């Protein structure tokens, strides 16, 4: 039944609309997530919270574990929490953001930040200590030295972004609750896949999945080229 519709104009238009929204929501979430997550990941990777005392070491390890744990935030729970925050009677209700793309971005952002942070943390940790020392020795401020280390860790940082983007673009449980999957407004590729699956239209669901992956592939091809350009010989 949906299949005849495949070639209707509106159908294609809707697919386009859905695809663009997917990209917009996940792209924005990951972008902001990177802006927040990379600095935190850098700080943690450097062990800036790690002093010489036992206590600060425990704090450092705990923070890192929390980040690692939050890489596995269940989307549905995040969606629910965002819902409860944005609902009319909730603390942020007056902003009127519920069931908007913004709500979806917030949801995915919450999931993207720990992922970017966690992978960045590990990438930074694997850059040799000497890079930072050299930068400091050459007169760099802590911030400039961090920047230099980031530059050397760029492959890993880009992986952090790629992983977060993968998680965001494929996520559905959270944006479904926070965005409401409203047609033409908050419907994305993944939520559309869920709708079609519920209808038993498995073919269409998989077709949408392939569209999703194709787009992700093009983006990743670009990112991968950048990533492996930056790789050390």
């Amino acid at each position, binding site marked *: 039944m949906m299949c005849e519709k495949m070639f209707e104009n509106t159908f294609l238009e809707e697919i386009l609309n859905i695809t663009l929204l997917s990209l917009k929501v996940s792209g924005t979430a990951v972008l902001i997530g990177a802006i927040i997550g990379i600095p935190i990941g850098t700080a943690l990777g450097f062990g800036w919270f790690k002093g010489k005392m036992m206590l600060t070491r425990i704090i450092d390890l705990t923070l890192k574990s929390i980040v690692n744990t939050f890489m596995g935030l269940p989307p549905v729970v995040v969606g629910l929490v965002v819902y409860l925050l944005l609902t*009319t*009677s909730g603390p942020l209700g007056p902003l009127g953001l519920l*069931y908007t793309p913004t709500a979806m971005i917030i949801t995915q952002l919450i999931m993207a930040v720990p992922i970017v942070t966690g992978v960045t943390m590990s990438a930074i940790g694997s850059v040799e200590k000497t890079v930072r020392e050299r930068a400091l020795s050459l007169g760099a401020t802590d911030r400039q030295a961090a920047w230099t280390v980031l530059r050397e860790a760029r492959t890993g940082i880009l992986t952090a972004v790629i992983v977060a983007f993968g998680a965001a673009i494929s996520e559905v449980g959270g944006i479904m609750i926070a965005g409401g*999957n*409203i*047609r033409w*407004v908050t419907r994305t590729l993944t*939520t559309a896949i869920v709708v079609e699956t519920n*209808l*038993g239209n498995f073919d269409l669901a998989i077709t949408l999945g392939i569209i999703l992956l194709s787009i992700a592939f093009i983006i990743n091809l670009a990112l991968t080229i950048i990533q492996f350009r930056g790789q050390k010989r």
Partner: protein
Amino acid sequence: AYEHYLSSQKPIIVLATTTSVYDSGMLDYLIPKFENKHHAEVHVISVGTGQAIEIGRRGDADIVLVHSKNLELSFVNSTYGIHRIGVFYNDFIIVGPASDPAGIKNLTNSTEAFRRICERGFRGDATFVSRADKSGTNMFELKIWSMLGITPSNKTYAWYIEAGTGMGSVLRISNEKGSYTLTDRSTWLSFKRQLKDMDILVQDDKILTNPYAIILVNPEKYPNRNYKGALALAKFMISNEGQELIANYKKNGEMLFKPLARKIELARELGFPDQSNELAWYDKQKP
């Protein structure tokens, strides 16, 4: 209950049903009683109606319990499903903001109510949230609109919001947006306490009745499936005992599903012309 499930030597019956039935909690109440009696284990897969039927058609379930007449009929016509029988029904209600800008409160004619919502909608005073997921509920809603000669879409009508999500979410969206919506009573009761600004506005319209059917998966197509178990489960649900148990399942003191299997006349009205034959056939089968 746990020990009961641990002994999984028992034959397994896979029941594919819709989320709306499963989420009512009725099956969790009903099925253990069946399992105790028949020494079987029922695995409930709760998905969308379309998906439930698709699962049945592919032979991944032994029996389906769904509510979407067209899909059910095509399932039976394709000979993958057999012996469709109405088992119980509940009703849809129109809910909306207590302020009721469309003024539909206490109407018993849902078509009229929809007309008023639409009218007000075009004036920008009212909005309506549709599940827009081609679920049983959504099909009902679309049928009413089509009776008014309207094919709504939120691309063209700003007042018509198509939220492709579960009933609970749709209720929440309606609550947030102060919109009207069509819901099954069971989900309404589950979510009622979270929907502070909403009331039931229209109910008891005949056309809002929502019957659920049982369909067995054709054993000729899938000989390896547990046809006997499916038959036993169906027989249990349409038995007097089963129907009584259904009638006794209540939430907040309200009955969620009303027995249908043995109300031949009502069943015929609700789209089960062969109810008496099927009932006779089931009663004839050995347990």
